[in-house]
């Protein structure tokens, strides 16, 4: 064996040299930022005078240091984890939260020490746990349904949020309905105004949950049938279904807004619940205080790192009901998926629909069932959510996005992962919110608590770096690993016990518990390695990790020496800690001393650990003889262990007192107790073979019994258990004797265990006769109903009995069998079959029915006409002929305008696409021109606004098209890059005398913003390039949300207003504004003949100029981008869209191409954002909400046609015009002369009819008056939400009926050409000249140096390009 001791330093140096540059740099950054944070005055790398100080100063300095520290720390952690082997990796990942926490706390501590602040963070244990559960429940409301849909149908369903809200509103509407209390035997009043009686009833809650489940489930099935099934039949990709669900969610949200307005409502199931001051649990709890920064009290006494005090926590009943309800639904779904036949079918369909279909599963029915259950669960969760959270139609989206993050975190499609992830995120959100509330104000950022909302996203992005497929996948992999090494699942009784113990320890903050937990873990770890690697024979300690260098030295020591070293190390730790406590103070010297102590402590720990590890051979010496004991000796050992523990505990209890001597005695007893416990654990481990033998014997017995014996055993066990319970109830009392009796019962309850054993043994037998899930639900209902609801008339008991009845499979089989027989008999009837076949051959019944309903029951002639149209087209031959005729006309049309060889391509040929573009553009232009306006001035303002918005939307759609249409990355974060651009331009251009301003010129700020955005896009590729499409979508939308939240919270992202609380950039210098106002506005006003209402000539407003600028920018982007995507680069992007792997195999780096695509698109989007900001003049945080931007741009992208930039302009035009038409309709409501007046009147009347005449059939008057007021005149639709619905409808319809959009992508069909002349070189030289001119102009505009440099760069670029191209052509020619 080699002695390493002399070479240690050398070895360390060598291993340092072997590290990669990135890691070294990360270490450097870590150390640098650590000192920078700690010593705010004296900085090494980022000291105050460093080269970038003109850019980064003030608050941004410590922010950057903080991020430098945390990010480099995380990076090192990531490297550490990814370099471990698989087994250690899973342990390391499980422990990584601790590492992350310590990194963050060191960062905080250093920052506060550097700033000279003292921060006290306080956590209430119970409050933290329960609030974490509350947040988790809130995320789970949607996450369960989303996960289920994802599992089976494989797409992220945006509409789930609105379905959840529908459920919530069903509850609220039932609350307003007078009939419910009538049904319950009360008066005919709304349930919320039933007088208080001091008793909580659950009737309404129960029935609201049931009804919401059924109705929303039905809604889910209808949506599935109408929309998603069609996509499944077309084999549409998940992206399409995701976007169509976005459309549906917009429709539903619009409808909910129209019906319920944007007012908050809460579901009150019983007036007694309202009084939240009384309806709550009181829980005693503990308050933990962590002290950061200068840990000194005012009078000089030292404060500990933490201290705890007693505390109280109040939990409202409603909150508790919400938490318990949602979690039990989640658990129930998990059980259903894993146990029942339906769950098996769902998993089969999820795995492979085709295979499932071929093995006799009706796939469509399973899809429908999934849709029902997913929607129903979301609806029920909505009811439960509205118990505590006030619902409004906007709530859905604000829960949806974090829920998406949660399900991605927990692996898409894994219910278990979703539950765990929601708990983790809930916990982190709770903790971080309380941290931010404590920390924020001290750093001058009282708005930082808003960051709590960002936690799911932050955590998502972080976790995807370590676990690219989420938590559920990590657990599943771990379990597979364990199953392979035959260690069973992680949900073994031992692990659950350990987890519960840990929770208990955390709860009660008991140190002894922690120590015990650590000891058990240690021994388990030891045993695991023994049992796995040697299969019970020779223990092998090789797998215990050893500290390098030190461990090998220790191995050569004698056991006496080891003991001495161990003791010395322990002593060192104690002494150093003691010294540390004594000498704590302030100042640099103390700091150094602190580090010395810290270092010494760590050394002590390492030495201790190593000596324990090297003790293992000795433990083996104990272990070997103990193994050969006979079972009697083992039992004796066990009993003596128990006794030792018991006796020492008892004596300890008796002699407890205070003073040092007692402390010593206590310690001794502790030692004795621990050794007793160890003895017990040890012997239990030794005699496990005997225990297993016992179980095996029982098992064999159970296998042999006959069926009658089995049932009789079961019945006997049930009776015996019930009897024991009865006796227990009867004899309960207090006193020692009772305890003994209780103990006796405990043993008798073993019969219950036997029952469970029998059931598991003959599970197939039992489940053949009894549906255990139904039975359990029924029994639970009966049990809970009597416990919570003594006065119920809600038929809970009755329905529970029905459930139990149907849980007997004989009964249910009889009932359903007869029903299906009946159906079969009807179907077998020849006459019936023939006639239905004939009818369905000629008529589409659904269309007919829909048409008749429209014609018969709607009192509006326009809609009646639509009804007639439907009735006509329900006649199939007519519909077929009409569509054939339409196709014929199209063909003739294309043959007329296209050359014969291209006619078949129609819209997707180059010329056809241009032709249609011109036609559409002309139509839309004429609509825009003819929009009504009172004066020529307002008309011009309107048109210029339309133009600017059209250009903004087109530019953003170009960016989206580049990312999604060409590269195939589903980017839901368009607004992320646009917002980045808008905010950067705003902050940089605001004059320096205004708060937050930097006073840059607009041009340089815009270029900088584009570069910044491009860099962000490039770096986004690192974590996301390998992600699947849906992960990418959710990551991008999450980043957008993070930017929104950051904008709300971070004062550095504000500019323009003096008030400190103002959010956003409220002042935008606009490009060339002064120049415009000084020169042209008068003459242009004259030229355009702008007159106001009095007929007086007006100057042309700035938007006229802005529209010209916008057109210029839009055309420039279109042209440049067009050239780029028509080049080989664009072709490669499209290849990546089609198949990444193959593209890689043909020599193109997917990462690099995705990164360039992301960067270019991001720069374009930043330009669009800046342009938009110049129009809006101020950017608040709701600018970044995806509803007003990203979703609209997606609508433009879908309607126009993905992959085609011309289509982006058409789509954007449609969306923008839609917006303006609705704005004008609002104006036209009260203006009889307005062109839109009749249309608005029609919409208003239709809406009023729907609400007052149709909905009042099944909704109470209260539900109308509480929303719209008592006056019937006020029942008006808010047109903004009609618009939202309409856009959603357009998205869904265009996806359903013209998936490729109005102008489909034009596949490139290059022709072979015979001439190779360098004929476009004149263009190249023009470009060179132009670039010189641009350079000169820049010299004139922004300064000599920058302009010259830019011009040189441009020229060099052109020359280099021409040179390269020339050389290549020569080479090709040679070949």
């Amino acid at each position, binding site marked *: 064996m080699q002695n390493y001791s002399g070479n240690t330093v050398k070895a360390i140096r060598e291993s340092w040299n072997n590290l990669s540059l990135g890691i070294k740099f990360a270490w450097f950054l870590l150390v640098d930022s650590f000192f920078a944070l700690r010593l705010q005055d004296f900085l090494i790398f980022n000291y105050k005078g460093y080269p970038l100080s003109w850019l980064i100063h003030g608050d941004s300095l410590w922010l950057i240091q903080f991020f430098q520290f945390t990010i480099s720390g995380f990076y090192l952690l990531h490297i550490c984890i990814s370099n471990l082997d698989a087994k250690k990796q899973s342990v390391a990942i499980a422990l990584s939260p601790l590492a992350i926490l310590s990194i963050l706390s060191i960062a905080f501590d250093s920052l506060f020490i550097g700033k000279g602040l003292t921060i006290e963070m306080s956590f209430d244990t119970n409050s933290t746990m329960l609030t974490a559960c509350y947040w988790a429940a809130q995320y789970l409301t949607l996450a369960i349904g989303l996960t289920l849909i994802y599992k089976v149908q494989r797409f992220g369903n945006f509409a789930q949020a609105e379905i959840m809200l529908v459920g919530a509103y069903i509850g609220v509407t039932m609350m307003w309905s007078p009939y419910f209390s009538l049904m319950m035997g009360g008066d005919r009043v709304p349930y919320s105004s039933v007088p208080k009686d001091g008793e909580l009833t659950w009737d309404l809650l129960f029935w609201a949950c049931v009804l919401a489940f059924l109705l929303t489930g039905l809604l889910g099935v209808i949506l599935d049938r109408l929309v998603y099934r069609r996509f499944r039949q077309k084999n549409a990709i998940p992206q399409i279904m995701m976007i169509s669900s976005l459309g549906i969610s917009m429709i539903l949200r619009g409808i909910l807004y129209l019906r319920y307005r944007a007012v908050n409502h809460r579901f009150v199931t019983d007036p007694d619940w309202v009084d939240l001051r009384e309806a709550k649990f009181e829980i005693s709890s503990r308050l933990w205080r962590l002290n950061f920064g200068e840990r000194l009290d005012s009078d000089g006494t030292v404060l500990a790192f933490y201290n705890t005090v007693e505390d109280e926590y109040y939990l409202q009943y409603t909150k508790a009901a919400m938490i318990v309800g949602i979690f039990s639904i989640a658990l129930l779904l998990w059980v259903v998926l894993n146990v029942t036949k339906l769950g098996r079918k769902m998993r089969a369909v999820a795995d492979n629909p085709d295979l499932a279909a071929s093995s006799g599963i009706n796939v469509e029915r399973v899809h429908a069932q999934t849709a029902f259950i997913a929607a129903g669960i979301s609806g029920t969760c909505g009811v439960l959510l509205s118990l505590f959270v006030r619902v409004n139609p906007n709530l859905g989206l604000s829960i949806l996005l974090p829920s998406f993050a949660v399900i991605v975190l927990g692996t898409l499609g894994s219910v278990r992962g979703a539950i765990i992830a929601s708990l983790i995120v809930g916990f982190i959100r709770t903790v971080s919110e309380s941290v931010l509330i404590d920390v924020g104000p001290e750093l001058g950022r009282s708005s930082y608590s808003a960051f709590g909302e960002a936690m799911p996203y932050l955590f998502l992005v972080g976790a995807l770096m370590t676990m690219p497929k989420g938590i559920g996948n990590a657990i599943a992999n771990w379990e597979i690993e364990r199953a392979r090494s035959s260690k069973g699942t992680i949900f073994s009784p031992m692990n659950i016990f350990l987890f519960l113990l840990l929770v208990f320890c955390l709860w009660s903050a008991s140190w002894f518990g922690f120590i015990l937990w650590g000891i058990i873990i240690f021994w388990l770890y030891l045993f695991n390695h023994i049992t796995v690697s040697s299969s019970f024979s020779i223990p092998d300690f090789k797998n215990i990790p050893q500290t390098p260098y030190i461990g090998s030295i220790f191995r050569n020591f004698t056991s006496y020496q080891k003991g001495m070293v161990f003791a010395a190390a322990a002593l060192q730790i104690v002494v150093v800690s003691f010294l540390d406590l004594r000498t704590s103070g302030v100042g640099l010297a103390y700091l150094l001393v602190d580090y010395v102590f810290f270092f010494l402590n760590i050394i002590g720990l390492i030495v201790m650990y190593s000596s324990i590890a090297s003790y293992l051979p000795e433990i083996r010496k104990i272990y070997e003889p103990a193994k050969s004991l006979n079972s009697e000796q083992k039992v004796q050992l066990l009993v003596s262990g128990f006794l030792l523990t018991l006796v020492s505990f008892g004596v300890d209890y008796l002699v407890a007192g205070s003073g040092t001597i007692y402390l010593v005695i206590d310690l001794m007893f502790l030692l004795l107790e621990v050794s007793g416990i160890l003895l017990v654990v040890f012997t239990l481990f030794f005699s496990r073979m005997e225990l297993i033998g016992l179980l095996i014997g029982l098992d064999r017995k159970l296998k042999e019994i006959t069926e009658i014996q089995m049932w009789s055993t079961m019945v006997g066990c049930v009776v015996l258990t019930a009897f024991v319970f009865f006796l227990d109830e009867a004899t309960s009392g207090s006193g020692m004797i009772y305890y003994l009796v209780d103990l006796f019962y405990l043993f008798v309850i073993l019969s219950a265990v036997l029952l469970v054993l029998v059931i598991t043994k003959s599970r197939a037998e039992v489940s053949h006769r009894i549906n255990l899930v139904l039975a359990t639900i029924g029994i639970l209902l009966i049990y809970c109903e009597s416990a919570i609801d003594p006065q119920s008339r809600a038929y809970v008991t009755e329905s529970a009995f029905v459930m139990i009845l149907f849980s007997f499979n004989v009964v249910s089989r009889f009932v359903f069998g007869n029903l299906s027989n009946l159906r079969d008999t009807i179907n077998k009837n020849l006459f019936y079959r023939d006639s239905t076949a004939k009818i369905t051959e000629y008529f589409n019944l659904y269309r007919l029915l829909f048409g008749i309903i429209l014609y018969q029951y709607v009192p509006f002639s326009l809609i009646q006409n639509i009804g007639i149209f439907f009735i006509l087209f329900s006649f199939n031959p007519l519909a077929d002929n009409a569509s054939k005729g339409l196709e014929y006309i199209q063909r003739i049309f294309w043959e007329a305008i296209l050359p014969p060889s291209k006619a078949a391509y129609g819209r997707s040929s180059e010329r056809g696409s241009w032709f249609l573009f011109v036609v559409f553009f002309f139509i839309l232009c004429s609509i825009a021109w003819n929009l009504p306006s009172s004066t020529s001035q307002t008309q011009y303002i309107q048109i210029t606004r339309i133009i600017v918005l059209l250009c903004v939307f087109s530019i953003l759609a170009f960016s989206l098209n580049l990312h999604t249409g060409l590269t195939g990355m589903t980017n839901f974060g368009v607004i992320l890059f646009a917002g980045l651009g808008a905010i950067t331009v705003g902050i940089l251009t605001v004059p320096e005398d205004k708060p937050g301003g930097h006073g840059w010129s607009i041009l340089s700020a815009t270029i900088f913003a584009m570069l910044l955005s491009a860099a962000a896009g490039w770096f986004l590729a690192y974590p996301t390039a390998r992600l699947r499409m849906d992960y990418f979508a959710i990551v991008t939308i999450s980043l957008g949300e993070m930017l929104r939240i950051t904008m709300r919270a971070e004062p550095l992202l504000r500019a323009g207003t003096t008030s400190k609380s103002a959010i956003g950039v409220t002042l935008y210098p606009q490009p060339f504004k002064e120049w415009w106002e000084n020169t042209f506005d008068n003459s242009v006003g004259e030229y355009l003949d702008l007159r106001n209402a009095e007929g007086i000539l007006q100057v042309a407003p700035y938007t006229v100029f802005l529209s010209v600028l916008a057109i210029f920018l839009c055309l420039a982007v279109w042209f*440049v981008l067009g050239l780029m995507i028509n080049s080989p680069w*664009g072709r490669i992007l499209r290849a990546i869209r089609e198949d990444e792997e193959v593209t890689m195999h043909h*020599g193109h780096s997917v990462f690099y191409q995705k990164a360039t695509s992301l960067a270019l698109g991001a720069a374009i989007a930043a330009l669009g954002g800046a342009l938009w900001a110049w129009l809006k003049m101020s950017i608040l945080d709701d600018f970044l909400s995806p509803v007003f931007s990203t979703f609209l741009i997606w609508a433009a992208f879908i309607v126009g046609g993905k992959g085609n930039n011309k289509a982006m302009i058409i789509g954007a035009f449609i969306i923008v015009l839609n917006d303006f038409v609705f704005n004008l309709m609002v104006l036209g409501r009260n203006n009889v002369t307005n062109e839109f007046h009749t249309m608005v009147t029609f919409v208003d009347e239709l809406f009023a009819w729907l609400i007052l005449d149709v909905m009042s059939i099944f909704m109470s008057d209260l539900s109308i008056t509480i929303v719209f007021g008592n006056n019937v005149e006020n029942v008006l639709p808010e047109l903004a939400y009609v618009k939202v619905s309409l856009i959603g409808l357009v998205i869904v319809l265009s996806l359903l009926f013209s998936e490729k959009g109005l102008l489909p992508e034009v596949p490139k069909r290059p022709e072979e050409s015979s001439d190779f002349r360098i004929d476009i070189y004149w*263009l190249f030289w023009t470009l060179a000249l132009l670039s010189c001119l641009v350079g000169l102009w820049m010299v004139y505009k922004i300064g000599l140096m920058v302009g010259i440099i830019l011009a040189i760069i441009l020229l060099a670029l052109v020359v280099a390009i*021409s040179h390269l191209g020339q050389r290549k052509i020569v080479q*090709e020619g040679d070949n």
Partner: protein
Amino acid sequence: MSSVLKVTNLTKDFGGLRAVDNISFDVGKGEFVGLIGPNGCGKTTTFNCISGLLDATKGDVEIFNRNSNNLTPDKVQKLGLTRTFQHTRLWRDMTSIENLLIPPRNQFGTNPFTGFASFFIPDEERLRVRKAYQTLDELEIRHMAHNLTSELSGGQSKLVDIGRALMGDPLLLLLDEPVAGVAGPLAEKIFNNLRKIVDDKGISILVIEHNMDFILRHGVDRIVVMDQGRVLMQGSPDEVKDSKEVIEAYLGGAK
């Protein structure tokens, strides 16, 4: 003859399953080698390990004397290798001619800036297009040039796939069942064509083929036979034809 592809002790595990078990073989310059074996014997996994799609558990792959372990597929392609897939994977929403224009090496304009500039230097692209049409001519599918590849039949897709592989001017070509689903005469023609390419241009080809008779008749230089993850034997077609082991491996189930 120097070897262009050298596989040494290659092993690939999928969890507990050993798909490829310690195999070694090499392909010389200008050699036409067949890789045959029954279903599931690890041929395609071997291809995946060579082309960088999978990381081998153990062993080395050398391509033109450069170790290609831990290289991503695009880096491996840069060494001069091109492969095809067993299930034809074309870029489906692009035309056949476009499919052929992506693989050529050293294209000008594969990033946004040069892409922008390439508009002003159209001749490079014209040469490429001409070459692509010539390739289509050779494979007799010029009439499908303007069709989306999702509209092609199975055999035509195979042909476009081969054409696409040839467009990359590979020095070493790995073909995974190139003629499965192609009509007889055309399949013969393709193989004869491959033979001609090997002889004329001096490139090397490693081809997986299921149909043993077929490959024996079509003039490959050497055959590597795999069975259950191992190399059963290597040798000339005649040696393989007479080998007892090979016949056993192929007809093993019939006994």
